[in-house]
């Protein structure tokens, strides 16, 4: 294993197929997945800001993309990823600071809550935003 095409023999993180699916592992994996998604999303949000500074033509183009169906779906996924990463990130801070929530039952429930928060929260934000 070590040394075959690898300069560095340190162990790799386990890949997805190693794990049996359960709430806390899903919570952890989706933290990373949403983080990588938000990395890409930051470039799209950044494009909006750059277009705004560039001028009305560039802004019209970005508005057209953002308000198209694929654009809206992408933005909805982005908002879900933000809310999930925010809620689970707060959990990481609580783990690191006060160090509570490690009990398996609590940890699983907390993971479920974070998923629910992301889905319901995103739906709530989008319906509120469409009203006013």
């Amino acid at each position, binding site marked *: 294993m070590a040394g075959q*095409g*690898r*300069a*560095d023999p*340190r162990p*790799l*993180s386990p*890949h997805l197929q190693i794990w049996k699916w359960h709430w806390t592992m899903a919570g952890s994996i989706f933290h*990373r997945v949403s*983080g*990588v998604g*938000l*990395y890409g999303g*930051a*470039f799209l*949000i*950044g494009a909006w*800001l*750059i277009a*705004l*500074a*560039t001028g*009305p033509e560039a*802004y*019209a183009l970005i*508005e057209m993309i*953002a308000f198209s169906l694929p654009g809206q779906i992408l933005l909805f996924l982005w*908002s879900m990823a*933000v809310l999930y990463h*925010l809620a689970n*990130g*707060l959990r*990481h*801070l609580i783990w*690191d600071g006060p160090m509570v929530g490690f009990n398996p039952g609590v940890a699983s429930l907390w993971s479920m809550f974070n998923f629910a928060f992301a889905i319901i929260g995103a739906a709530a*934000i989008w319906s509120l*935003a469409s009203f006013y």
Partner: protein
Amino acid sequence: MSTSAKSVRGLGSAGTGTQHHIRQRVTALALLFLVPWFIYSIIHACKAGYEGALIWVAQPINAILLILTVSAALYHMRLGMQVVIEDYIAKSGTRQALLILNTFAVIALATATILSVLKIWFTAGA
């Protein structure tokens, strides 16, 4: 299970990491407040059209908070992506290249967005 103490004492297996860990948390703490503000604000700005969005960015409080949000978010995501690359890319050359690309991409985005905010603040705000 035993570890050769002299090789890990004070360093950990990677030789470094405490500062990375703390910076990830400190930026997270800032984003805990900045991101909810950003979501609320960007909905307003998007609905206001081109002129409205310009007026929104040109307000000093919004421009300041935007620059803080961009800085904290991009620092945070550079640290996060660094860990993902280190975890999954085993080949040293590819890993180094991606780590450098990560740094370049984030700094380029930070420069472009912060300059955009400043341009709008100084021109539309005047």
